[in-house]
């Protein structure tokens, strides 16, 4: 087993400082993502800084990064203020995993792409010149259907699309202090050798996430399709949030998961809906617009159909 020093942090900023001093250190929350990488010997950190013992005092409107998916998934308050977030948490993984998995970990986790996760394979994210999933004959049933540049991985987070739809802000701490980052800006295009999908620098940690309950978050829904009903990642997911005023769409958010290397906001489809009434024809048009720019790989054309259906269902449900 690869040897590392293990540190227990008492606060996120203490953890950030510990990480800043050690360029080869990794933060560990529940460890669900990290331990898989360690066991496959994909990473060999010098130090692990555990966030598991960190507890931040509860504050209204603030979700600490250590909040578990189980806690989010049964939060009565969220059921009213942001149902999509609650649903996204409740649909993830298994009860055991939801009891451990955290909000911070869910946002910062690495892709489940098997070429990334397997030491036997070349991976663009891990520094290879090409993306194995885009090679001829590759297994890419679960991969991205939207333009992907060098990497065709699918973003695994259930929570990110919801938080982006809710205009949530992450508080990011580092050794130097803290900064606010819209969750949407936590994610950037994949680059060769850049393991993570987040824009966070080494030593930066998500301390908490906050959102303002708005008409959008209150009227929001999460839809996902997965092959297996437990212990599986989504083939495609979508969060729709709708602000209907006087029969017209005042504002709308359509953010998709598992279809691009980062959460994918369908701004074209949003624009098409704003200012108009919402009926079946508009819903169909919007769903078609969501996938209009899709360029599926050899093995995942079905994801285009599935995403379109999920968007239709989500909008229909919100329009009831």
């Amino acid at each position, binding site marked *: *087993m*690869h040897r590392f020093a293990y540190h227990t942090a008492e606060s996120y900023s203490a953890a950030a400082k510990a990480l800043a001093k050690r360029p080869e250190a990794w933060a560990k929350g529940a460890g669900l993502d990290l331990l898989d990488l360690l066991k496959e*010997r994909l990473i060999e950190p010098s130090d692990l800084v555990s966030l598991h013992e960190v507890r931040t005092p509860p504050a209204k409107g603030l979700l600490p990064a250590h909040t578990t998916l189980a806690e989010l998934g049964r939060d009565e308050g969220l059921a009213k203020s942001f149902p999509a977030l609650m649903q996204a948490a409740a649909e993830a993984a*298994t009860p055991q995993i939801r009891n451990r998995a955290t909000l911070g970990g869910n946002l910062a986790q690495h892709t*489940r792409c*098997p*070429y990334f996760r*397997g*030491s*036997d*394979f070349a991976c663009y994210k891990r520094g290879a010149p090409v993306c*194995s999933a885009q*090679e001829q*004959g*590759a*297994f890419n*049933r679960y991969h991205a259907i939207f333009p992907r540049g060098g990497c065709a991985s699918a973003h695994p987070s259930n929570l990110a699309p919801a938080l982006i739809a809710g205009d949530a802000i992450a508080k990011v701490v580092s050794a130097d202090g803290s900064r606010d980052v819209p969750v949407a800006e936590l994610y950037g295009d994949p680059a060769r050798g850049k393991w993570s999908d987040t824009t966070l620098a080494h030593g930066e940690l998500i301390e908490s996430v906050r959102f303002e309950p708005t008409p959008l978050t209150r009227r929001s829904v999460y839809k996902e*399709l997965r*092959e*297996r*009903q*437990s*212990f*599986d990642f989504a*083939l495609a997911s979508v969060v729709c949030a709708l602000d209907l005023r006087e029969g017209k769409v005042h504002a709308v958010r359509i953010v998709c998961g598992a279809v691009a290397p980062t959460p994918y906001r369908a701004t074209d489809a949003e624009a098409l809906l704003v200012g108009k009434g919402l009926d079946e024809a508009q819903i169909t048009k919007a769903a078609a617009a969501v996938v209009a720019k899709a360029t599926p790989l050899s*093995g*995942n*054309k*079905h994801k*285009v*159909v*599935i995403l379109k*259906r*999920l968007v239709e269902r989500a909008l229909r449900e919100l329009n009831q």
Partner: protein
Amino acid sequence: MSNEQLRLGFEGFELKAEANVPDGAPRPWDLDSKLRVVGTDVPRLDGEDKVTGRARYSYDQRFPGMVYAGILGSPHARARVKALDTKAAEQLAGVLHLEPLGDELYYAGQPVVGVAAVSEEVLDDALAAIRVDYEVLPHVVDTDAAMAPNAPQAVPRRGGDGNVVQGRRDTSGDGDAKVAAAHAAADVIVEREYRTQVQTHSCLETHGTVCRWEGDQLTCYASTQATFAFQNTLAQALKLRPQNVTVITEHMGGGFGSKFGADAWDVFCARAAKATGRPCRLMLTRKAEHLIAGNRPDSIQRCTFSASKDGKLLGAEVHSWGTGGVAPSASIANPAVYAFEAQLSDQHHVLTNAGAARAFRAPAHPQGFFALEGMIDEVAKELGMDPLELRRKNDPHPVRQRQYEIGAEAIGWGRRKADGAGEGPLKRGLGVAAARWKHNGRPGCSVRCRIGKDGSVFVASGAQDIGTGTRTLLALMVAEELGLEPSAVEVRIGHTTDPYGHGSGGSVTAPSIGPVARQAAYEVKGQLLRAVAERLGVEAGALALEGGQLTGTDTPLPFAKACALLPVDAIEATGVGTRELFSMPRFAPEVAGVQFAEVEVDVETGLVRVVKVVAVQDCGLVADPLLARSQINGAVIQGVSYALFEQRHLDPKTGAMLNPNLLDYKIVGALDVPEIVAIPFSVANGISTTGMSSLGEPPAVPTAGAIGNAVANAIGARVRSLPITPDKVLAALGEV
């Protein structure tokens, strides 16, 4: 030898048969037998041990000073070791033993080096520190690609080139010409291609053993479904006499056909234990379990079935190809069951650079029956006939004929709608498929039964429990014969120092050791009654054991009091599975079963949910309906998993496995397990003195076929490829 009239069969279909019962054997159980505990729901005797963690599996064995062994597997699908540098690994503190295991490598995961170290952590470091210089050679892992004329030779073969090896070629009657004639005379001919995937056994307890030497005596705590085969193969590999190897398998975490003899890694484990002078444990990693410990071959089945317009099945012609990796073992059971006028099965094994297939719960059957049963439905559709009616018209088995009625009633076959009918995106469908298996009880096992002067009863068999409930079965047989409760019988299984039992393959265990256990109890009962009769001065023939008592005396004696009259400390008998004991007349030539599935398919997303499965399964006389239902449930769950989820994915470029874990290799979870109505269908079968037959495998045969048919009924389009995933459903519907 005495002649006994037996009443065999089931209610509504009985026949009388004369049995030659060997001297000293009890009257065979039949429809007239008044059984007290056999045929009642008896909970698994070791169930509590298993759910509380008290049961100790190979994985749980820990000994002072024990070392941990593991193997470095090839990262390449085809390679040759040019140079091996183990210096850094050997210099690590705590690395005690290291040896090369192979240098001509034909599949990813194939053992290259074995290591033993003081801890799992050091072992892991050592495996990572080994440097291997591989000459990477061309490989092929895909079945279709391997069949191409210019494909790399996956593995050298005797007597030919190319990766396609002709397998069984069975023709009926006049062979090919007769099938052609049957087709020519037909009103309806259906020609289709079906495909199934590679499924790995994914035993919850991975393969492996813990080895301990005491002098020249080796004890192996092996995770095996064949204690004596393990003993024998390990002894052979180590050039020992079998008596020098004791195998102990009191509990094992799943085998499904993949755990018979000792594997190369077990032999290495024994050698490492010897070399280090310490107990040594080697359990495969999950990744290795997927790669090198067996799988069910995939299949491509090109089927041509024909029928007359009144629904008589005429010709069945099947040409098949499949890969068992480096092993040419991709047989399929198709055609089967139905009374075709003529049939032809022309099978081919395709060699690829992947781990070798092994027997997997009803080998050849689930894949064969997915195509066979799909074809029957497709013929029915062409004929405009109800698929159940077509089956009933062409199925010669009397038991299945009754099972179709029971199953149809339980699933509500009358609700079945036209294919694809119904409003809205969620479509329901019903499907049916048949199961068959051989009566696989066979001679050759022994079981020892001992009664102590204190009234204790002990029964021992060296056979193992693959999970079906061997302990409970032995206790039941003995308890029935001695008039006791099963809980009063102490059972030891899985020690090769006890009497021989067959490996658990082919669903042989219960029907093979059951009659022998009964025989042992019957014989020791005779000894007890004779001894007591002598002591009390009565006729032994007047005495009996029932309800925990000795009866036939003036006042019944409690069993323990009767035993106290024994002149010796214990009496003992070994039941021997003679050929005569298994030569009773039989009711039907095969084990029969049917399954009905109800599915709900979301035609917009392609998602299939199995709502309900009704499984009506014959296994001869049902010894314990509770455990029988448990086996049926397990088979159906595994069948759902095979039908919808499981698939080994190999990357064509590297030949490495993309999903060598239990997240990405998808096994059905609790939320996808349907309502299962398991109906053990008891048939007084004859065959042996207990009338029991095989159960572990037959209910694993039809599930995917029934689900495939239900999906076609639901959506009005057919998915001819397993697993039935959303992409395939959408493709069948023309959505992608």
